[in-house]
């Protein structure tokens, strides 16, 4: 996989994530249905957003390790205004911040979950949405257990 600066997918009109060079293992992980985040080799901290060094001890030695994919909805909002044409078919839609079991919180959406079921504190699990041939997005849904 290569870095990407494409902001809109021409086929769907959907906004794409910009893929920065040091984020590539994360995006390759998602394509392979794995949620990989950086863990510090020196102090074991796991962090997000992806960054060049451990924000706790500043070590630049880290390993991409799989997360469990389980977490809870820590926060969410519901968009009623579609700020781009692609989102007109999506409103109202939720943007959630999921707190992973491992600690970091990630901004994502919920799939396969009715809007009215989304609550702060609900258990969720990761799933993966292929948005282009190259790019897969992390998503979440209500935990099946």
């Amino acid at each position, binding site marked *: 996989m290569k870095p990407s600066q494409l*902001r809109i997918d021409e086929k769907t009109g*959907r*906004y*794409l*994530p*910009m893929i*920065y060079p040091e*984020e590539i293992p994360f995006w390759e992980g998602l394509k392979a249905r794995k949620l990989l985040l950086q863990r510090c080799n020196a102090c074991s901290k796991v962090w*997000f*957003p*992806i*960054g060049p060094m451990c*924000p706790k001890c500043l070590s630049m030695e880290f390993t991409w390790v799989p997360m469990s994919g389980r977490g809870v909805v*820590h*926060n*969410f*909002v*519901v*968009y*009623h*205004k579609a*700020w*781009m044409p692609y*989102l007109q078919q*999506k409103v*109202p*839609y939720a*943007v959630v*911040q999921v707190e992973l079991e491992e600690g*970091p*919180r990630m*901004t*994502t*959406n919920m799939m396969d979950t009715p809007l009215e079921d989304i609550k*702060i504190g609900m258990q969720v699990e990761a799933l993966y949405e292929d*948005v282009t041939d190259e790019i897969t*997005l992390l998503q979440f849904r209500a935990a099946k257990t």
Partner: protein
Amino acid sequence: MTELARAFRDKTAVCGVSNFVGSYPDRTALSLAGEAFKLALDDCGMHKDEIDGVICLSFGSDYDRLLEALGLNVRYAHQGWTHGRFISPTVQQAAMVVGMGMAKNVAIIHGKRRKPYGQPTDLEMWRQGLGPHGESPAYGALRPAFGAAIAAKRYFHMYGGGNEDLAPIAVAFRKHARLNPIAVRKEPMTLADHQKSPWIVDPLRLFDCCQINDGGSCLIVTSAERARDCKKPPVYISGMQGVHAGPEYHNLAMPGLGVAQQTVLKYVPKPEDLYAYEMAGVTQKDIDFLVTYDAFTPLILFALERFGFCGPGEAREFVHNGRIELGGELPINTSGGLLSEGHVTGWNLLVEVVRQLRHECGERQVKNAEIGQYACFLGESIIFRR
């Protein structure tokens, strides 16, 4: 507090201001900036050649083109991200430049078009990590409203209440705007009107969000001594503190809400979080009126709790029943603020503090205003006095 800070109190002042807001489709940012500068010179009675320091915005014209257009040579020029959360740090910088003798009279000049010519907008949300208000375009987390909405959601989750607690804020500022000849939004607004306005990003409705305008503004900062010889009464800079930043200080939130990677806790400011009061030698009780960055209504709740005007979770009840209106316990954003006066990327807020302390606000004048504070959710503040 340092010896230097003790000596600095009330030694610098704002002597000239200008502000206009609206729609100027046929004018460039350079033209708006130039007019703002001219109006501020007129306001204080200085000749342009007395200005030996200029600070300007990093979009619109660059500093060199602006100075060329103004025919001005200065010994202190700075160009930066001098908008939004960085407006009061910009005034602080100007005061320190004057205090250190690096320039005598610093003009902070601002001209901005809502849609600039020849410059991309909206790219900041694709920066590495998340956008400056937590934006994540691929997930539809768009626009600064996202930051305010996720912060408000956590606030209501922790402390109770909901969107209806934001209505008195929008209504108060609209009442103030109706007393302000230049305000862009003056239609009457009731609490019910607010509650009928459409959802934008739940828990925020349309009337919880400001609009963006074209406009210009300028503040001239000088020594207290020079200010006393200007046309209008000096407005002294008494105390100040900077933008607090880092993972615990998410933009458009207050500490403790648990937005993005913030720790969840009931935030109460510590003495070191309130340095501006110490520097100015005053407390919250001495503040006659407050001006705060109100791009979105929840930011008022956050500012009130960040600066200890209210305890954790108490601001949402405080803002009801006219307490933040003119004549109330603590009038806030007496010009109508960004929500109703208009958004000159924030500068109009600081101009209002100066005008209130000069007692030139007519119908919206805070009676006997002596001390005014500009203070925001991220901790940046300036305490001014007349």
